[in-house]
Structure formats: structure tokens, C-alpha cells
């Protein structure tokens, strides 16, 4: 990609100059090909083989067999469903909305409140995934913190890790990831000129109206970028779910990364596992295309 970019930019210059100017890029290109492009190509290749970690020596090219297995398996269908549920609930709705609300509230809070709130929210973001997962496991566990609190105030105990595990991991992911959206939105909101909002107030717009018609449209590009980043991040969340539920019970929180890991490393089907990872990559690609398209429409309205 970088090479073509350079070539395109230097179209009118002699080739030798282009080459000389390209030299400083060479180490980066080599490193990227060895460490990024190579593994990705190898992953694409192995998705079409029956490569396994154990149980058979060598591997054969099996064409689309892995994808056929996936698309005819009920487990895979459920896993795509859980992946999308997890992404929509925890990223697109949860992190995005909570992040925006926090950013808006913090704008009007005092400096002390801002410092305390951001320290707490960013604290969750700073924690390693596994630690966050363990905290939520301890919180939701049947004899965990939440049930002690509930019984303390006379309410019946909850059982969400067993009854709705995908919701439990989604809540944990909102908690952990909100800081990112909050920071992006705080930065974006601070760029919104006060005068425009004040002008809207002068024109008689209420708080709500100002927010919907002035503030949000002005930060829409940050919203789209943020949505894309958190969607891609959330699609590949593994550690949090693995720590809390291992994809269970009864696979009811088995998102694609968890499912692919199980197939590749617990059932030793590396080929099948990488095929699933490719499917995940395609889903991520679809989401990013949607967001990029939305951004482009913004830039050049038809």
C-alpha cells in the first residue's frame, strides 16, 4: 500500500528519483511484509487446508470445506449471532452512548468532578482485560458482591452468568471500554465553538434541541470514527469473555473469537479455526465499509 502511494504521488518525477526517495521506506516495508503480511497470507492459506495441531502429520488443501462446515453448523450460526449481539449491545449502544453521556455531563461539571470521574472511568480502561474479566466474574458470581448487596437490601439474587451470560459479558465490556469513547467525545466536544451553541440558545433552542441540532451534528465525524474503532475492538474481544465464561454455559456466550480459539487450539483444527478467523475479519470489514461509506457520504453529499 505504501509503495503504491509513493508511486502515485511521484507520477511526474523520474523513476530513479522515486526509487531513491523510496529507500528509507524499505525497512518498514520489509518488516511489515515479514511480520504482518506474511502471517495474514499464511492464515488465509491455512483456512483452505485441513491443517491440525495434532492427530495428523502434514495437511492437505481442502478448498472451501472449512467454510462449508462452518456455514452448515448450528454452533457457528449461534456464534455469529452472539458476536453481533455482543458488538451491538456492548459497543455500538453501550460504550458509545455511555461515553457520549459522560462526555456531555463532564463538560458542565466542575474541574474536581471531571478529574474524579475521568480517573475512575479511565481506571477501568487501564486494567488488563483479564483482570477486568475476573472482577466482573467475582461481582456477578452466585455468591459474589452483587448478590450480597441484593440480599442486603432484601431483593432476590441474580443469576446472570448462568441465565444470560452474553449480557453479563456485554455489561463488563461496556464498563471496561467506555473510557475510550468518553475520551474521544470529550476531545470532540471541546472543539465545538461555544458561540454557535450560545447562538442557538439565543435563537430560542432548549438544551435538548441544541444537543440534537447543533452539538451532535458538529461531532458526527468523531462519532463515526469512534464507532468504527470500538466496533473493530469489540469484535475481537477474547480475554474478557474467556475469563468470565469460557464461552459457556452451553456455548451461550461463545462469540467468534472464542469459537475459533476452541476449534483451533482445543480441538486442534488449525485450518478450521483460521477459516473462522477469516469470517470474523470479513464481518469486521463489512462494519468498517458501512462506517467509511457513511463518512464519505458526509464529505461529498450527492
Amino acid at each position, binding site marked *: 500500500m505504501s509503495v503504491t502511494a509513493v508511486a502515485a504521488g511521484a507520477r511526474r518525477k523520474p523513476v530513479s528519483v522515486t526509487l531513491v526517495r523510496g529507500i528509507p521506506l524499505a525497512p518498514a516495508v520489509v518488516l*511489515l511484509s515479514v511480520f504482518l503480511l506474511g502471517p495474514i497470507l499464511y492464515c488465509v492459506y491455512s483456512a483452505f487446508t485441513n491443517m491440525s495441531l495434532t492427530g495428523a502429520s502434514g495437511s492437505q488443501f481442502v478448498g472451501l470445506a472449512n467454510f462449508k462446515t462452518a456455514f452448515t453448523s448450528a454452533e457457528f450460526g449461534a456464534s455469529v449471532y452472539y458476536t453481533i449481539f455482543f458488538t451491538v449491545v456492548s459497543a455500538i449502544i453501550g460504550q458509545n452512548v455511555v461515553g457520549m453521556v459522560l462526555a456531555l455531563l463532564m463538560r458542565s461539571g466542575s474541574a474536581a468532578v471531571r478529574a474524579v470521574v475521568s480517573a475512575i472511568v479511565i481506571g477501568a480502561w487501564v486494567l488488563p482485560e483479564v483482570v477486568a474479566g475476573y472482577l466482573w466474574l467475582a461481582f456477578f458470581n452466585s455468591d459474589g458482591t452483587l448478590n450480597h448487596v441484593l440480599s442486603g437490601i432484601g431483593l432476590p439474587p441474580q443469576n446472570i452468568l448462568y441465565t444470560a451470560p452474553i449480557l453479563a459479558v456485554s455489561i463488563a465490556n461496556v464498563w471496561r471500554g467506555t473510557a475510550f469513547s468518553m475520551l474521544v467525545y470529550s476531545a470532540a466536544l471541546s472543539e465545538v465553538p461555544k458561540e454557535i451553541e450560545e447562538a442557538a440558545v439565543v435563537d430560542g433552542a432548549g438544551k435538548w434541541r441544541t444537543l440534537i441540532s447543533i452539538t451532535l451534528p458538529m461531532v458526527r465525524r468523531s462519532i463515526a470514527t469512534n464507532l468504527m474503532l470500538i466496533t473493530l475492538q469489540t469484535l475481537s474481544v477474547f480475554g474478557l469473555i474467556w475469563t468470565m465464561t469460557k464461552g459457556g454455559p452451553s456455548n451461550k456466550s461463545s462469540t467468534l473469537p472464542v469459537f475459533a480459539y476452541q476449534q483451533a487450539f482445543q480441538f486442534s483444527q488449525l485450518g478450521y479455526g483460521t477459516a473462522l478467523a477469516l469470517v470474523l475479519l470479513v464481518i469486521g470489514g463489512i462494519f468498517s465499509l458501512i462506517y467509511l461509506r457513511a463518512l464519505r457520504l458526509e464529505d461529498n453529499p450527492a
Partner: protein
Amino acid sequence: MVEKPVWRSGGRRFAALAAVGLLALTACGGGGANGGSGGDKSKVTVTYQQFGGSHAQEQFLSGVKTEFEKANPGVTLDLQPITASENDYYTKLQLQMRSPNTSPDVVYEDTFLINSDIQAGYLQPLDDHLNSWADWNNFTTTAKGAAKALDGKTYAVPDGTDTRAVWFNKDILAKAGLPADWQPKNWNDLLTAARAVKAAVPGVIPLNIYAGKGLGEATSMQGFEMLLYGTGSTLYDAQSQKWVVGSKGFTDSLSFLQTVYNEKLGPTPQQVLDPNWNNTVSQQLIPAGKVAISVDGSWVSHNWLPGDAAPWAQWSKVMGTAYMPTETGQDPGKVSMSGGWTWAIPKNSDNADKAWAFIQMVSDREHHLKWDIANVQIPVRTDVASDPSYLAANPTNKFFASLVPITTYRPAYAVYPRISNEIQVATESVVTGTTDVPTAANTYNDQVKSIAGDAVMTAAGS
């Protein structure tokens, strides 16, 4: 690792993402530099699993290291534990053995996976060494078969085994009117005792038997296979080399689990689906007197020894053991399943001779005795099993070692982990009441057919 797609984005974002990708890759690769003796004949690399708070093997092996280096001047024994849980250990080990650059010289292999690793060509046969090794005659016949592949060659030397049976709390059973030397003769006796406990002693789990996916292999072995192998049926027909589906034993075993969970004789489904349930039972509930009967492994008392996870001085007075009965008491009357670990030499080892010297040393009488006592293992050497110091070391050693003649090793061939997973799925759908027994059994049959392909046979009489 899944890289995020980047298209149409500006060069700057691409560069940023690439930098992140590179960071992630270096982070993943950080641990890959160990292992591998790199063609150095003066070094023997030994890989084993290190996990949790137990340092028994580390202590044992560091003793062996001193002796080995004394007996082989100029050779260093490089102990390289992989710190990981069981499944991750298997994966890391397999990845190490794949390449001559990273392959250790000696590996600690679970019998659960050894057949599949043999089929993958990771290990070398030891028959030439074993034929000229007098000590091999002291190993029991079942143990000699533990690492024997379908090609008839032996690829590893077991260092101990385990057996499974019924643990019970004598105090609780006494309250339910059962004797201290209680011994169920068939499945009904088990259920009757559990019902008696449920009626007489509220607040305890009458009969703990594992089920569901959360516990993984513990469900398959301690739970389901302990039942199935007592019905006269089997998972795998060794003679025709085919997986058995549709047996009456399979549905009977599921029905037994259904009865236990339906009548609330066992843990709640939610409890048993917790991946840590087996530790909760042996480290908290049993010492607290909250479990009456539990089908579990010979190693459980390990937890109660001084300095381990849940020291419990009175355990040998409170806890009794009984063998697991067959379904109706049919011959041989009792059933047990065995696993265990072995020492093997990877094909990619570049110091196989010294590796064998290490295995010989670690597998002699004296070292087995030391290891079996330290780690509450069931001996695979007859001369260790009868050693007075072994029998005196733990009051249950004698009982669990006595199950060795009737025990069964799992058919741990390449597809076993996936079939075992299907067993767990079947038990889970039955104990949670998601499906009835015939549906669960049918799902299992279909899955096994799709996993094992042609190597499947339908049980006779069904």
C-alpha cells in the same frame, strides 16, 4: 490473531494500525525464544507443565537434575516448565515440537493426547531402548499399553497413573443410617444412599457426579465414562478400531445423570457448569462436610495434605472410599478409569541418547517411589506399588492402587478430544433439562459420525 482490515484509509491511519499490529506481534512472539536446545549436545532440555500453587514436580525434577548432571559430566539438564493450564500446555507443547528449532529433548505428555501427538509425528518410538531396559519388566501391563500407538510401537514411559472411585463422608452417611464401610454394589445402591442422605441430612449435596461442558475432561472421565464403562458398553471398539454409537449403555448412563439431577440428589446445574466446580468440591465443600458422596479421582486427598490447597488433618478419619459399581453389579463388579502422564522424546530432539538416559533415571524404582508419594500418584511399577513406604504414605494409596487391574485407559486417539466434548454436551443438555435422554444421545451419535467419518459402528442390539 485477527488483523483489522484497512482499506481506503489514509496512510497515516494505516501506519498507526501497522505499528499497533507490530507491537501485538512482538508481544505474542516474546515467549517463543525459549525451548530448543539448538543442536547443543551438552544440553538436555526437559519441558513439563507448571501450574497453580503446586511445586511438587519442580522440586522433584530439580533433585533429578543434580543427580543427572553428576552421572553425566559435561551435560546440563535444562528444565523448562511451561506455565499454563492443561489445554494451553498441550497447545504450547505441540507448537514447540513442530519445529526442530524449538523442540525440547524430553517432554511430559498426558496420555490424553499422546496418541494424537504420535499420529502427528511429533514423537519417536522407544522400542529399541525399551527392549534392552530391564526395568521395563517392572511396569504393569496396562501401564505399558498407555503409550502404545495403533502401529504397535511404544512412544513413552508412564510416570504414574490415577484411578477413580467413590469418596464418601462417613459422618454424613452415618446420619443417614449407612455404615462406615459402605460399598454400593450397583447404580441403584448409589441412588438409594443418595436419597437416604437427602431425606436425613438437609443442606448437603448427596451425590456429586460431574456433568456439563464447564468441567471439560473431568465430566467425561470422572462423570460419564465411569458410568458408561460399567454398563458393558464402550466408547471405542479396539478390535474393529471404530467409535461406538447408539449403545444402550450410553442412554442408561445419561438416564442415571438425569435421575441424579432431576431428583436434586446432585449439585444444581448451575454449580456443576462452573469450570471451577471440581476444585470447589474438593477444596471447600468436602472439608466443610457439605458433600456426602462424590465420584472423583485418587488424587483428591492431595488437596488436604499439609501445605497444599486446603489442609485438613482429619480427612483420613472422615472420608471413606468405595469402588464405583457397575450398572447392575455385572462382572467385574467395579469400574475405574485411568489417565496419567508419561515421558517421551520428540522426533525433533537433537540429543535423543541423553534424553533416554534422563527418562531411564526418572523412571527407575527410587524416583518413581519418590514421585508417587510426593504427588499422590498411583504407581505403574509393581515394585513401587508394593513398597511399604508407599502404602504408608497415604491411607488411600492401597485402595486406589488396588483398582489398577480393572481400570481402563481412555481411547485417547486423535479425535477423542472432540468426541469427549460431545459427551460433555450430551450430559449438559440432560442435566439442565434442555433435552431428554434420547434426543441428547441422537445428537451425540450424529456428531460422532461427522467427527470420526467411517470409523463408527452402531452398537449391537439397538
